[in-house]
């Protein structure tokens, strides 16, 4: 670890802290309908779709709209990918995407996961990139934000019984948030050298005389929204490690910031809208604490280097000429600190873009990204998804702590009763069931084990990571597991759908139930949901719920791998 490395981490963190309030204020205005500079376009869209943006919906209507929209757009993408060969704007003449991958890709992009079992540059035409994948990058992010806003409105309790309008949330998020932010970010990427064209691939002759195919395409536009919408699906197979996606340290910083800014700012908006800033900052602090610990431990683990290399005489210390630490699978231009930081950010925020190969991290270095996803992507988390996942944890914490202070649990004046706890339980149960059951299935089945690139604990980690990533809608791959098979394409597709919609419905139901509750005034007997005590409790519940569920599996994966590595065994 170096002072320079820590400085880079500190600069990143400082910018996130500084922008949380201003962007949070903007977010609040967007979703209140107070930002109107695209009013004619917005009103036109509503008229076209025949919706009244001011009509507040019951949670069942909100959920129905969301599910229908997602289903239709997913089918649309599936069909378009299957017909890719017949569609225009396909300079390299890519054929139809195979059925299993078309399903998985459609599910994965609709669910804001962007798990990819194909190499983008060798599979997708610019039209598919822009009309299908790019489209989902925008709207799936807007859907996630909408669900979080629905929860916030339910707690703010301005219009009892309703949680907002799905269509208005979708349109406003897309038009006023993701489009303008992505537009500016795209220009910055282009300025830094990220390509943006629809040209066919260039064939170059290397110094050795061999021909090399260099893929072209609309990369910068895709890059911007993939980070801002915490989607993570790369244009290239190498994702953000590719020099055309992430050429410079500045683009690296920009993309890391793009991932974290909105999830962090949304917590601030939350505090404003429920008129309890102290609570929101406590929630923010819980996220930030878990993040800082994660970055610290990952950076530490990666800086140590591989003990076997060190034993063999490799110098893992950082010098002017050598980045030191474990550089396997990392880009020279990013080094250990920025790779560790990127890995923690992308897994904390459900993005899934990678600038280094997590498979090549040390066992402990790879543990934290895995844990980030298993904790439920609540460390800032995906746009919207992070906050609503966190609110589920907060409700659970309030329930336990509320009983301990001798009152029926209340959250921001709303009673937490039987129905609310049912939804919270369903949420926790579904997410852990998807990861554990599907992983166990793949470990048992020969077709599951066939995809493994490594044996032993490392192989188990690869499978656990893949199902954690798809269920948590992260989309980053540990790599090492070849997922392009009927077995995995189907299961990953299902895991993304479960991890998205089987969780969103209970969350919306929870919001709906809370919206119907009357607000009780705060008294001295009410559990305070701010301050260090609540912070510790919240972190405790997040860690215990996550750790207790996955500890046995983790013990057989990264933990034992680390212990065996110390004894000199690798996998």
């Amino acid at each position, binding site marked *: 670890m170096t002072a320079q490395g820590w400085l880079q981490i500190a600069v990143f963190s400082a910018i996130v802290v500084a922008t949380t309030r201003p962007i949070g204020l903007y977010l609040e205005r967007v979703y209140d309908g107070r930002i109107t500079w695209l009013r004619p376009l917005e009103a036109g869209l509503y008229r076209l779709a025949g919706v009244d943006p001011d009509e507040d919906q019951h949670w069942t209507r909100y959920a129905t709209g969301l599910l229908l929209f997602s289903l239709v757009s997913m089918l649309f993408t599936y069909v378009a990918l299957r017909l890719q060969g017949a569609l225009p704007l396909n300079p390299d003449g890519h054929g139809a995407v195979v059925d299993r991958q078309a399903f998985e890709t459609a599910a994965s992009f609709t669910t804001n996961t962007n798990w990819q079992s194909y190499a983008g540059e060798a599979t997708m035409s610019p039209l598919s990139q822009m009309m299908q994948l790019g489209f989902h990058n925008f709207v799936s992010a807007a859907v996630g934000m909408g669900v979080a806003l629905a929860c916030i409105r339910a707690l703010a309790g301005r219009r009892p019984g309703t949680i907002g309008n799905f269509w208005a949330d979708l349109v406003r998020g897309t038009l006023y948030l993701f489009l303008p932010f992505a537009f500016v970010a795209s220009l910055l990427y282009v300025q830094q050298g990220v390509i943006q064209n629809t040209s066919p691939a260039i064939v170059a002759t290397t110094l050795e005389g061999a021909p090399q195919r260099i893929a072209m395409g609309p990369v910068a536009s895709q890059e911007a929204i993939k980070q801002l919408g915490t989607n993570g699906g790369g244009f290239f197979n190498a994702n953000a490690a590719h020099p055309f996606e992430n050429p410079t340290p500045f683009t690296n910083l920009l993309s890391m910031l793009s991932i974290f800014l909105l999830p962090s700012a949304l917590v601030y908006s939350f505090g404003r809208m429920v008129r309890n800033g102290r609570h929101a900052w406590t929630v923010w602090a819980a996220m930030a604490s878990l993040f800082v610990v994660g970055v610290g431990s990952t950076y530490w683990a990666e800086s140590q280097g591989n003990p076997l290399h060190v034993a063999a005489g490799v110098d893992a210390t950082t010098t002017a000429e050598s980045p030191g630490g474990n550089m396997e699978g990392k880009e020279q231009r990013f080094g250990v600190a920025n790779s560790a930081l990127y890995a923690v950010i992308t897994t904390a925020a459900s993005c899934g873009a990678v600038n280094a190969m997590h498979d090549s991290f040390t066992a402990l270095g790879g543990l934290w990204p895995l844990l980030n996803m298993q904790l439920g992507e609540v460390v800032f988390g995906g746009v919207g998804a992070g906050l609503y996942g966190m609110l589920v944890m907060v409700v659970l914490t309030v329930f336990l702590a509320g009983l301990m202070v001798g*009152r*029926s649990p209340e959250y921001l*004046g709303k009673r937490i009763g039987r129905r609310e706890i049912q939804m919270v339980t369903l949420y926790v*149960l579904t997410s852990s069931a998807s990861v554990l059951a599907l992983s166990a299935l793949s470990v048992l089945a020969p077709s599951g084990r066939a995809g493994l690139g490594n044996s032993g604990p490392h192989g188990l980690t690869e499978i656990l990571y893949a199902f954690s990533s798809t269920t948590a809608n992260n989309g980053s791959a540990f790599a090492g597991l070849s997922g392009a098979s009927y077995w995995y394409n189907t299961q990953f597709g299902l895991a993304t759908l479960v991890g998205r919609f089987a969780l969103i419905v209970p969350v919306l139901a929870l919001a709906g139930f809370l919206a119907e509750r009357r607000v009780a005034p705060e*008294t001295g*007997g009410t559990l*305070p949901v701010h301050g260090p*005590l609540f912070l510790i409790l919240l972190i405790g519940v997040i860690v215990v719920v996550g750790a207790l*569920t996955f500890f046995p599996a983790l013990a057989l994966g990264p933990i*034992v791998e680390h212990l065996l590595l110390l004894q000199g065994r690798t996998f």
Partner: protein
Amino acid sequence: MPARSHAVFDAGLLGRAVVDAFRKLAPRAMVRNPVMFVVLVGSLCSTIVLANDLVTGRSGVGFTLQIAVWLWFTVLFANFAEAIAEGRGRAQADSLRQGRQLAHARRLAASDLGGPIDILDYQIVNALTLRTGDLFLAVPGDVIASDGEVIDGVASVDESAITGESAPVIRESGGDRSAVTGGTKVLSDHLVVRVTANPGETFMDRMIALVEGAARRKTPNEVALTILLSGLTIVFLLAVLTLEPFARYSGGSVPVPVLIALLVCLIPTTIGALLSAIGIAGMDRLVQHNVVAISGRAVEAAGDVSTLLLDKTGTITLGNRQAVEFVPMPGVSAEHLADRAQLASIADETPEGRSIVVLAKERHGLRGRSLENAQGEPDVRFVPFAATTRMSGVTMSGGEIRKGAGDAVAHWVIEAGGSVPSALATVVEGIARSGGTPLVVAERRSGPAQVLGVIHLKDVVKGGIRERFDRLRAMGIRTVMITGDNPLTAAAIARESGVDDFLAEARPEDKMALIRREQAGGRLVAMTGDGTNDAPALAQADVGVAMNSGTQAAKEAGNMVDLDSDPTKLIEIVEIGKQLLMTRGALTTFSIANDVAKYFAIIPAIFVATYPALGALNIMGLHSPESAILSSVIFNALVIVALIPLALRGVRYRPTGAASILRRNLLVYGLGGLAVPFFGIAAIDRVLVFLHLA
């Protein structure tokens, strides 16, 4: 208040609880508790495995046997906890039932639908044949056969069977003291009672059923907690079920009894085992305070109350006003005023009147006199208070003395040719403004009448009430005083007693409106009441505590009855409600926190054969895989027994704000829950090794 507590464990109770623990193994009973049902299934499975191992003669039977035995113990301990709680309730019920060894009632032939009642026309019938609407006669020595309403007669009744209070109480027709309770005993005179409850539905019957736990239904918070615990159980079930595939992938296999042991250690058995005992014990604690709740829901609601409505009289102030000062008019000596005031009050048996006599004696050394022995004043006759004159006093051969409300006495003085001194109005107003009641004293001898001065009567706030309100405030509960007094008086008493707010000149409908207003603001309201006119408000309030001395209507409307008829007990009821919830929360936290240590014991034990490197996780230094797994299971079972006293007693409760309660409970049960099993499991491991059991 006669506390009816008893030791947590009592030999007689224990024996029966042990038997009940086995009886409760019936699956139909176990299904009600999903967590423990899973343990039951696990015990059965491990027993089947054991039987199979014995038949096939596999090695390591001793280990499987011990696992199976301890799993059964886990289930039995849970049942035992519930049985103990029920047993304690039953003991209370039995003591209640003792008063009901009656078999007959004097049923009257007449109905109350009209005509005079002939109290001699009765028939001795079995009490169980009485139905709602029947009339019966109760004479001295009779145990009242059923709940009912007195429609004729006045009698003193011994209610010690239900209140534990030996002083008899008066029951009479009409008014707020007309309700009688089955099982109480008539001491004097006679009563004609109309039955208001059928056999099995009387107040006593319901009360006995409630304390026995027979009629217990899960409360809302208990239901929510059960859902969460069941959810966690399923999550752990998944974690354990998927462990075998992962183990097989890693080149090992986990024996079924070990998987079951891990599952039972991980699911929240501690809270699962004690949950219903906590609920029963909560009701039981109320009964020990001589309060009977109609449902557990009401007890839970008591913990959530944020507004308490308290009647001024009897709750905040002593029942009566007392004289605190004599204020003479100009030209009258204080001693003379005291003397006349005392004389006017010598036959006045009201508490106010008595207090005037006492004050005169204390301040001016005037000995109490009586009508027969009024020195120097022959032929004194008492003139009682009348609503028409609003005065009382004495008439003597030498003149008259009157005391009463200012305007009434002034009127009397002017009619008797006297004049009212200008100072009077100032004094009267001053006393009224300070919250007191001015009582003007005037005398007429030969000549015009003369105002002598004013007696300052004051409501006396009960000792220690201010501290109790401070405690309530710390708990986040707002107190509102309800009084019929004018706002000026009410404000003064409110200030003196430290109550947060008051409702003056309150009529029943005002009380109702206040409750609705509070509830509309999301607050839960508790109140006490005894009169029929309190009934609507008692029904509307979230926690309505009826006084046992009150009317049947009030008791039916409320959801709790205080057998001691002590309105201040509302405060204890709130504390018991809070303690009940806290106990559940604390033990849930403890239960979940325990899992961390159990993982560190069991995971390395299970996999150390496959990956010896995992021995590094054995931070407790447990002897062997077998001893580690056994110690965890044993710890898990024993902790249930160890916590039974806590479940029955409830966690310690201090009336402070939520933040400090949380800090304390988190430290004790959260941190304690993390740390205790590390030591406990390690200690049990050493014992097992010492005994050569593993």
